Every structure is written in structure tokens, then in C-alpha cells.
């Protein structure tokens, strides 16, 4: 037997000693695409004042088809909707144009940006405990960019955008891995998290360590609030607490239950909700932290406890599957409160598709409105789907992606032709706000990367098996 092992051991020892002698760490193939790209020199974001034109020239080429807010026409916080902001013309004015800001470019600053294209990496759970339908995703992620390339090809200074998508399997470690793949193998310029708070947190941490800008819808704040490269494009759960409690007051639900998923990421939301309730005099008759993937037995118990207290409303922060389970168990037990909460995925039509009739009393906040009002906000959406959707019907996931991409485009345009990671992030924190007409305006400062300012209220309608928009642009008070 020794004979078998011995050659292996010898070979290993030989190679290992040879290897560890001469090599530097990180030589062999650690994604070396970044270093060679900095041909322009790191600080040469001597932005041509051509960055000013975005505000002006867009209205012409984009040929807005009569919609009230032509896409991309209000990138860098234009005057109409975010009044009086000193920073908004910053990109145009100073000579070291967009470099003005706290971010310094590093060796990989322009990784993912070439003269021809920009690469964006998105990750989302398509498999795992709380999946999002994949086909909607596959179609929806590119449509805005195809539309932009078609209608305003010079908007991004001759670049097209390529979207890379990966499944993070609802596992934070896997999310880090796919984020890394997207950055190192696919050369992503920015990373985006489409859903799943824990995965977003994990990947955002990875992105921050590697100086990669990372954007997501607002989720938790714990673990994200000290990351330099993380930007939330909508209200976090904690920020929505005030809106939720205000809704409860409006609906005269003075006694409610509070059910929040049992993950540490949601601790700050849990506390914020309780604090907001106390301020407004709402009594929380029953509170519990429910398992992220609660099974029937647990759902039954929780619903029964809620029913026992006789509350008419329940504030809920959990995955859509748990919401559907709770709602339906409620129906079984004759308990149909108003289910209200913050949401990014709970307000999807996928939920009404298979959660009815239980979810009929669901009311959720969402960064985007629903399909019923989108034509008033952006007429290009449906038209683009018809043109580029390959026969797929426009759905709310597509809408969410459209809005996100539109926002990104505005950010790219505002940064200017010399697009780099540092330049982009500088633009984000120095521009007063970004408005794509679908989200509430998004505003970052150097200290506050939670950019949401408002949300839409969606109401479940089981007759139509969709959500409808109950209130738009509900601003934080």
C-alpha cells in the first residue's frame, strides 16, 4: 500500500516546495483582466463637458412617443422634479469632471467598460427557497437596453449594455460566488441584486471589498449601511416602517399582529416597525419571528395565535411563499386580516397567481407600481416589449427590470463618457437625485447610500389575479 501513496507524496512534496518558493501570491490566473485596461490612466476622467448635453440632447433623439416622461430625459437630477440642487450640473462644470468626489479609481476602475459595451451583472434566486420565475427574467433584463440602443444609440456614448445573469440559489455563499464569477470571468462593471436580502448582503460585502459598485432595491440596513460601494435604489424595510404604520392609522387598524422572518438581517426592520407602531399608538397584540421557510405546522400555529388575538391587520415581512401559506391557512381558519408590509417580491403577480384566494387582503409597498398604471408613467414600456420581447407579454418582473435599467442608464449618462467605477460612484453621491419616472426619485449622499424616497402601494385583487396600484409615490414623511 505504501507503494501507492509514496509516489504521490513525493510528487506533491516536490511540486509544493517548488511552487511555494518562487511565486508571488495571486499570480496564477486571478482574473487579470483589470490591470490592462487602465490605459487612460486612473485619474484621467477629464470629462469632456459633453456630459452636460444629456440633460438637453436627450429629448430630441429619444423621440418620446407622447408619454409624459420620455425615457432617459431626466438623468442627472433635472430641475423639474427635484428642485434646486447645486450638484446636478457638476458633471458638466469642472474640468476633472466626474472625478470630483470621495471615490478614487483603482486598477480595475474601468473593468467592464469598453468603447463598445458596458457589462452589468445581475444575480437573483431562480432556484432555492424563494424563486423568481426565470423566463420573465431572461426576457426582461435586456429589453430596456435594446430599446435604448434602438431609439437613442448615442445616449451612452456609443456603448451598448450587456446584461449577465446568474442564479444565486437563495444561498448567500453561492451569491458571493456568482458575483465573483460575474466580476472576474464575465467582467461585470457593476453588480445588481434583484432579490433576497441575505444574498444581497453577502454579495454587497464582496463588492465593497473589491471596489465594485453594487445596487439593489432597498432591503435591510444591517450589514449594508457601512459599505462604501453599496447603493439602495428604493426604501429599505426600516424606512418603510413609517409608511406602513401610516397606512394602519389610515385604515383604522389600531391593533395588529407583527410577523417577521427569523433572520438577523431583518432585526433592524423588526425594531423599526415596533418603534414606529409605538410612536403612532398602534398596539402590537402578537408578534413573532417566523422561520424563513416555515412549514405548514408552524403556519397553522402562527395563524391560530393571530386569530386568537382578534386583530384585523397583520404586518408581515417574509418571503412570498410564507405569505401565501399564512394567508391561505388564515382562510382555512376563518381569519382574513389585512396583510400589509414592505415588499419587493411580495407584490409580484406571481403571488396573486397562485396565492389566491388567501392573498386577497394583501397590501404591499413596492418600488415600482403595477402594470395597471405604467402606461401613464412610461408609454415606452409596453411598446418596447412588443418590439423586443420576442412575443413575451410584459409582466411586472419585466417592469421592475425596466425601471432598474432605466435608472442605471440615467446614472451612466450622468457620469459621462469617461465611465469608471469611481466616476460612477462619485456621480451617485454628488448628484441631487435621479428620477426615471417610475421609482420615486432616488437620492444619495456621501453618508447615506439608502436612496429611496418613496414607494407605491399595491393592493391584491383576486378577481383579476393581479395586484393593482392603490397609491403612487407615497413619500416618506
Amino acid at each position, binding site marked *: 500500500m505504501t507503494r501507492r501513496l509514496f509516489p504521490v507524496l513525493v510528487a506533491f512534496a516536490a511540486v509544493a516546495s517548488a511552487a511555494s518558493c518562487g511565486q508571488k501570491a495571486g499570480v496564477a490566473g486571478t482574473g487579470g483582466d483589470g490591470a490592462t485596461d487602465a490605459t487612460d490612466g486612473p485619474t484621467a476622467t477629464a470629462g469632456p463637458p459633453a456630459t452636460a448635453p444629456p440633460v438637453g440632447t436627450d429629448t430630441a433623439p429619444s423621440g418620446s412617443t407622447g408619454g409624459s416622461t420620455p425615457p432617459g430625459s431626466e438623468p442627472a437630477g433635472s430641475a423639474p422634479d427635484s428642485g434646486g440642487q447645486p450638484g446636478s450640473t457638476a458633471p458638466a462644470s469642472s474640468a476633472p469632471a466626474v472625478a470630483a468626489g470621495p471615490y478614487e479609481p483603482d486598477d480595475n476602475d474601468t473593468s467592464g467598460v469598453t468603447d463598445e459595451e458596458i457589462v452589468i451583472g445581475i444575480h437573483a434566486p*431562480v*432556484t*432555492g427557497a424563494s*424563486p423568481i*420565475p*426565470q423566463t420573465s427574467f431572461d426576457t426582461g433584463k435586456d429589453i430596456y437596453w435594446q430599446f435604448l440602443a434602438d431609439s437613442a444609440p448615442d445616449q451612452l456614448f456609443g456603448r451598448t449594455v450587456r446584461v449577465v445573469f446568474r442564479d444565486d440559489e437563495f444561498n448567500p455563499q453561492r451569491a458571493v460566488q456568482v458575483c465573483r464569477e460575474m466580476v472576474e470571468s464575465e467582467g461585470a462593471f457593476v453588480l445588481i441584486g434583484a432579490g433576497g436580502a441575505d444574498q444581497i448582503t453577502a454579495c454587497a460585502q464582496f463588492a465593497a471589498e473589491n471596489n465594485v459598485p453594487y445596487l439593489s432595491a432597498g432591503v435591510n440596513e444591517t450589514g449594508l449601511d457601512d459599505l462604501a460601494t453599496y447603493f439602495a435604489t428604493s426604501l429599505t424595510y426600516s424606512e418603510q416602517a413609517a409608511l406602513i404604520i401610516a397606512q394602519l392609522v389610515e385604515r383604522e387598524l389600531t391593533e395588529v399582529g407583527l410577523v417577521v422572518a*427569523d433572520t438577523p438581517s431583518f432585526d433592524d426592520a423588526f425594531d423599526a416597525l415596533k418603534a414606529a407602531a409605538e410612536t403612532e399608538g398602534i398596539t402590537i397584540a402578537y408578534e*413573532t*419571528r417566523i*422561520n424563513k421557510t*416555515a*412549514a*405548514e*405546522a*408552524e*403556519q*397553522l*400555529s*402562527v395563524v*391560530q*395565535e393571530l386569530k*386568537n388575538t382578534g386583530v384585523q391587520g397583520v404586518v408581515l415581512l417574509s418571503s412570498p*411563499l410564507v405569505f*401565501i*401559506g399564512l*394567508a*391561505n*391557512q388564515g*382562510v*382555512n*381558519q*376563518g381569519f382574513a386580516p389585512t396583510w400589509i408590509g414592505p415588499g419587493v417580491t411580495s407584490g409580484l403577480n*406571481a403571488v396573486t*397567481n*397562485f*396565492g*389566491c384566494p*388567501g392573498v386577497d387582503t394583501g397590501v404591499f409597498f413596492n418600488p415600482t407600481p403595477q402594470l395597471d398604471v405604467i402606461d401613464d408613467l412610461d408609454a415606452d414600456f409596453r411598446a418596447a416589449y412588443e418590439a423586443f420581447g420576442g412575443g413575451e407579454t410584459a409582466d411586472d418582473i419585466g417592469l421592475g427590470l425596466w425601471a432598474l435599467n432605466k435608472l442605471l442608464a440615467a446614472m451612466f449618462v450622468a457620469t459621462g463618457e469617461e465611465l469608471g467605477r469611481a466616476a460612477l460612484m462619485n456621480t451617485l453621491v454628488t448628484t441631487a437625485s435621479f428620477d426615471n419616472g417610475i421609482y420615486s426619485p432616488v437620492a444619495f449622499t456621501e453618508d447615506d447610500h439608502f436612496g429611496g424616497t418613496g414607494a407605491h402601494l399595491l393592493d391584491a385583487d383576486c378577481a383579476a389575479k393581479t395586484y393593482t396600484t392603490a397609491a403612487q409615490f407615497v413619500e416618506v414623511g
Partner: protein
Amino acid sequence: MELLRARRGLLIGLVVLIALVVVLFATGEEQALVIGTISGSAYGLVAVGLVLVYKSSGVFNFAQGEFGGVALATLYLLDANDVPYALAVVGALVAAVVAGFLTERIVVRPLFESPRVTLLVATAGVALLAIAIQVWFFDSQGRPIAKAFTRTDRFSVLDVQLSDQRIWLIVTLLVLAAVLGLFFTRTNLGLAVIGASQEPTATELVGISVRRLSTFTWSLAALLGGLAAVIAVPDTGSFTPGVMTSNYLIPAFTAAVLGGMTSLPGAVVGGVLVGIVQSYATSASIFQDGGALDVPGTPGTLIVFVVLVGVLVVRPQGLLGKTA
């Protein structure tokens, strides 16, 4: 006295039940009795299938949950294509039986003589395969499943409403357990099944085909698994691939062990007991955050584990089983 000793398991079971009821009422958690019975009935129905297979082939059938999964997937497909519900249910059960039949033919037959642990692993493989195929066809998304009976307010026990669907579940469980119990003790076929498991050679000598019996048993078990899934899961409104295995299988195994792996009524009793205990663990404030016995995560899972190990250490034959 003799009678007492012979029926010791039953006595212990009764004592446990009474103790449980007393504790529940004392702590104000008596609703756990009803809720536990609801979820426990589902566990019991799956457990009956497990006991059936164990009694006849000595195998722990890991695929029992996924026989139900196959039924659910079929029910969804048929329902989505506008097949009348009753017919869809029948179709679903047929699909489950086919799955059981195929499993027996392709996996169990060749491994007839193999150690039981090998078969356990094999059935686990079958379960995994079934889940993988469902994910393949449906992706991981949940799918809606309609209930058979929608009325929910007919009965109410201890302030807990019992929907019609749930009544159906409990009734089915009781009827099935009784029928199967009679089947194994009174009918020739049932006795043959038992005989085949204990003395296969002798059974063959008497002219009964052990192989045919095996096919029959597995198909029957699959039918039971299908029934469990088709009645219990629509109550939650939706199903995801693998839900039967992840949510029902372990409690069902615990229930079967608690009741005694060779006892069908034991499976029923065990199921209800496990359900009640699990429900109590979930709702009792003592286990919640800040309680005296604060358990991180889901208390129900830990309780089920404790029950399982407890039974195996203290009384391995369970409440109503025969000594191994």
C-alpha cells in the same frame, strides 16, 4: 395483570396522551390539540404508508413522500388543463401508483436480497430523482393547488375552525387505518403479505408469489402516499417540488417509530401525537425568543428530534409495536 402487561404499550400511550392534554390545558395551549391533530393527520397518513412498506419488506421507504409529490404534480397538471377535479384526483392517484409500481420493479426487485440499508439509500435516490424531475418540469416555483372542499366554517373545535378539507383528511386517515388493520389481520391477502415478509421461502412454497405481493404492497403504499398529499397539501394553497419530503417525511417517520414500526394504528396515534407536540413547541411562549427554553430557529424541529431519539432509547418498539 397479564392483560395489562401485554397491553403495556397502549397503556403508556394513553398515559402520555392524558399527560399531554393536561399540560396543554394548563398552559393555555389547548388549541395545539386541534392544530396538532390537523397536521398530525397528514403525518399519520404518510406514516401508515411507511409502516405498510416496513411490515412487508422491512424497508424504510424514503420515497414515500415523493409518491405524494408525483400525485401533486399530476393533480396540478390535470387541473390546469381543465379536467374535472374529481377526475384529476383519480388521475393523480393513478400516477402515484404507477410511480410506486415502477419503483418496485426497477429499484426494489433487484435489491430484494440486499441489506435493508442499501434499499434505504436506493429509495432516497428515488426520492431525489422525483424531486429533480419535478424541478425540471416546473422549475422551483410553487404552483397553486385547488382544494376539493372549500367550505371552512362548518365545524369549530376549541375555537379552531376545521375546514371541510381537513375533516376529509382526518376521516380518510381513520377509515384507512381501520381498513388496513383489518386487511392485515383478517384477509388472506393481508396475511400473505405479512407471511411473505417474515418467511419468504415458506410463502413461495405455499404457492404465493412473493414478487407479486411485493408489487402489490408498494403500489398500495404509493396510493397512500398519493392520498396524503392530495388531501393535505391543497389545504396550504400551493405546492413546491419536494414539499412532501421536506415537510412531512421526517415527522412521519418519527410518528411511525413512535407508534411502533409494525403497527398501523400506531402510525395514526403517533402521527397525531407528533403533530400535537410539534404544534405545542411552535406556539408555546416558553420556546420563543425570551422564553425560559429559548430555542434558536424552529422549536418544532428540535422537538421532533427529541421525541424520535427518546422513543428509540427508552422504548424502541414504540407504543404499539412488537418487540424487535
